[in-house]
């Protein structure tokens, strides 16, 4: 009995002598307290040279943590870089703008830009002073260009539901010009509330895309996590369109894609914005097609980068919507290891 009590005592000492920290998680006062701007939005400098690697830090201090959106806007170009987050202190490089964009076009040399900070749950909007761009950021190259839509004579395989669709390249469509250079691809269609969600589509074979005679894209990696698809996508802000980007894999490598037997990997994007947004995702983020008989069965059951025989773009209507909707598409590319960041 004596030994038992001694053992229990020792166990107690073993387990009970450490004190825990005072609290875990973010301070509730920071989340649900009163919203106030403690320090206004300001830029770290008045001028910046992005060509030589310069950057601008935007700082502010709030009384609580809340969801915010900070946009850096080019006054002349209309280019936009968008950051979102949840914080109360914009310090220590939280927002360090390096001249990249989220929405085309690109920021220009000698252009002034300003930042606008808005909040999801509060009506306040903060503005920074302007920053002059002495030199803009050099546009990085992409690893494989799928299409920049500058050649209208390219044999795109197009298809549509009904007769009221536009499905071709354009210099200007509904008052909108390209994200880069002179042309872009426009897709438009009309639909009723009970109509098919599919409006129109375009299929571009890898052979035509590359122009090298190869039936498949020639990637330097077979790892889906390391391959990124990038494109500028224009949204008219109608919240009706959804773009499905699809990669058809010729699993048996016979040079023909058989939709009932070979896999299609898709990535769907609800187009709920206005402007040319740069969209990127890794091939690993794609999912096997759920359209019955259209690429939802993969012969070898896995993603094969070396068997992508075509890229397909489908304009879909978001469920519960009706009327005309449209999207623009420009400068579709693949990059390795990281998204395209112009």
């Amino acid at each position, binding site marked *: *009995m004596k030994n*038992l009590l001694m*053992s*229990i005592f020792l*166990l*107690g000492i*073993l*387990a*009970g002598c*450490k004190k*825990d*920290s*005072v*609290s*875990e*998680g*973010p*301070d*509730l*006062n920071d*989340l*649900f*307290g009163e919203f106030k701007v403690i320090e206004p939005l300001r830029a770290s400098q008045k001028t910046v040279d992005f060509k030589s690697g310069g950057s601008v830090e935007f700082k502010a201090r709030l009384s609580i943590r809340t969801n915010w959106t900070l946009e850096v806007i080019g006054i002349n170009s209309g280019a936009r870089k968008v950051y979102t987050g*949840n914080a109360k202190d914009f310090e220590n490089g939280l927002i360090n703008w390096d001249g990249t964009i989220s929405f085309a076009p690109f920021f220009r040399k000698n252009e002034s830009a300003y930042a606008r900070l808005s909040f999801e749950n509060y009506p306040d909007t903060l503005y920074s002073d302007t920053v002059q761009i002495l030199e803009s950021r050099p546009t990085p190259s992409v690893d494989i260009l799928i299409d920049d839509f500058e050649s209208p004579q390219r044999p795109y395989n197009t298809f549509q539901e009904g007769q009221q669709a536009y499905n071709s390249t354009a210099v200007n469509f509904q008052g909108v010009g390209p994200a880069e250079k002179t042309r872009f691809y426009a897709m438009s269609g009309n639909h009723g509330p009970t109509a098919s969600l599919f409006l129109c589509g375009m299929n571009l074979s890898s052979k035509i895309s590359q122009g090298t005679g190869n039936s498949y894209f020639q990637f330097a990696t077979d*790892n889906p*996590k*390391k391959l990124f698809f990038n494109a500028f996508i224009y949204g008219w802000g109608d919240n009706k369109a959804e773009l499905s980007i699809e990669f058809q894999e010729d699993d048996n490598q016979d040079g023909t894609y058989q939709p009932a037997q070979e896999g299609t990997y898709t990535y769907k994007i609800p187009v709920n914005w206005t402007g040319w947004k740069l969209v990127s995702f890794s091939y690993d983020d794609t999912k096997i097609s759920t359209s019955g008989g259209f690429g939802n069965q993969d012969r070898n059951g896995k993603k094969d980068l070396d068997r992508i025989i075509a890229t397909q773009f489908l304009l879909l209507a978001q469920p*519960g919507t009706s009327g005309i909707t449209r999207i623009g598409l420009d400068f579709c590319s693949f990059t390795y290891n990281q998204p395209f960041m112009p």
Partner: protein
Amino acid sequence: MKFIYTYILLLLSLSALAQDKKVEFFGAGRFSLNNSNLTGKLIESDTTTARKQLNGATLFDLGFHIRPNAETEIKAITRVQNDLNGFWGAGINFYLRELYLRGLLLNRISYQVGDLNTRMTPYTLFNQQVEMAQGNPMALETFREIIQYDRFYGENSWRQQGAQAEMTLDLQPIKHSLQIKGLIAKNRQTDFFSKPDRLFAGASLELKNNYRFKLNYDGVRVFDIPKSAMFSDLAFLNIVHHLGLSKELSLAKNNFLISAQAGLSQVEYQNDPLAPKLEDGAFNEFSLAWKSPNKSWSAQVEWRSVETGFRSMGAQSRSLNTNALTSQYAYITNRESQRALTFAEVLTDGAVYQSFLNPELKRFHPAFENINPYGKATPNRQGVNLKAAWESKVKDNASVSAGLASMREITGQGTTNLRSFLEQTLQANVKLSSYVGMKRKWNISLWARQQQTKRDGQEGIDAIKLTSTQLKFGTEVELLPKLDIQLAWLNLTSEGNEFLAERNSYNQVVFFQKQDCNLKQSFLIGGLNYQFSEQASLKIQYQQIANQQDIQPNNAYQINRLAILYNLFF
């Protein structure tokens, strides 16, 4: 045709073996049908959800015990399942449900390889099953048995694949015996890119003597295999040590059990530059249990303290997935929002449970369980549990038990103020037929629990006041031999507010979701139960699930269901 001949030949061979008792057959059969109708305020605005839903399944498990020799046994269970919508065989699933081999080595070491039902202690490896597990009326018992059977939960165990071995050493010189157990199981399959293979290893040592003294050590180690995913060096490591002592005593014919448990945990996310440095965690538990000389009365007092940093993947994994889709009416409203679980699904729907251990502290529903959502291993809790129970001298004639738990946090969440918890439970089971002189069976059961959560603080910022009450009442009356009428009424109310912690992949709290709660759920059951044998029954029930939420009053609904369930184990 050739396949059929082969199959018949195989069955004949097995029959021949069966005659030598080298092969034994066993299994289970089930037919379930749920025909439901959705009504209530919800359908005034919801024009998309189908009002009526009919689903069900027929399944048959065939198991073999094959004993090729006296020291070896192979167990295999195959399942054929045909969903109600699987016409002409299109919906048939045929798969191997369980397979293991076990035996005895050197007449001393028992081993098992293949599928394992693994369980150690409530702090190392334990399927806690905390929600709604207690006091369920007999009308729901078969549903619960099916969930346990289908998910391999057994007696608080987790199904894993691997190998385990056990042996007992007789230490004569010191008059003790030492039982040694070890297991290793594969916990996760690599994707060959970023997720490495994960193994779960456990060891138990238990030293006992004839003076009813027991000392046990249990240790688990969860670790990733380097180089099994070629694009990632990340490795997860979780180590838990558990030391326990217990001694049974008899004083004036009263029986006492004194027990003490303590342990430590360690978690590391190796080679991960983003991973925070996590503190080790510890726990301790002391308890004293008493039984009266005639064993009618019993009582227990327990102290438990589990530090905030205590992490044990084997003990803190949750079997109930509160984000799971329900089998019926998974989406409601015109926005097709996922329907939140009601406690009727928790008790009857196997689809909302999961079978895998995982390192995250998964979300829980505070109205269902707010004090011990991860069982005894719930981190950041300390306090006292008191229990008292009485049982009639004639076994199972009547029993009453009551419990009181007073717990509190060790570390505040988002504030320095601490949550305090108070739980009161009462349970009674009575065979009324024994007291009123009825020849036929008449049983009633009652279970009631109230959990109160409080935290001082500023209203709207960090103050919490949440009261959740569960009531379960059941009765069964024998109409004819083997035929019972079963009635049950279950009710859950939850009022107040809570802050639900959102955690990142390292289990650190990164956000709190404010939740105002005004929930009223009820589950009414009436039906017949025909008990063919102890292991075979047919239930025909009318079930009514009512869910009211004063926060979203337009989404109040009621599901009226005809449930037919035939269940057989043989």
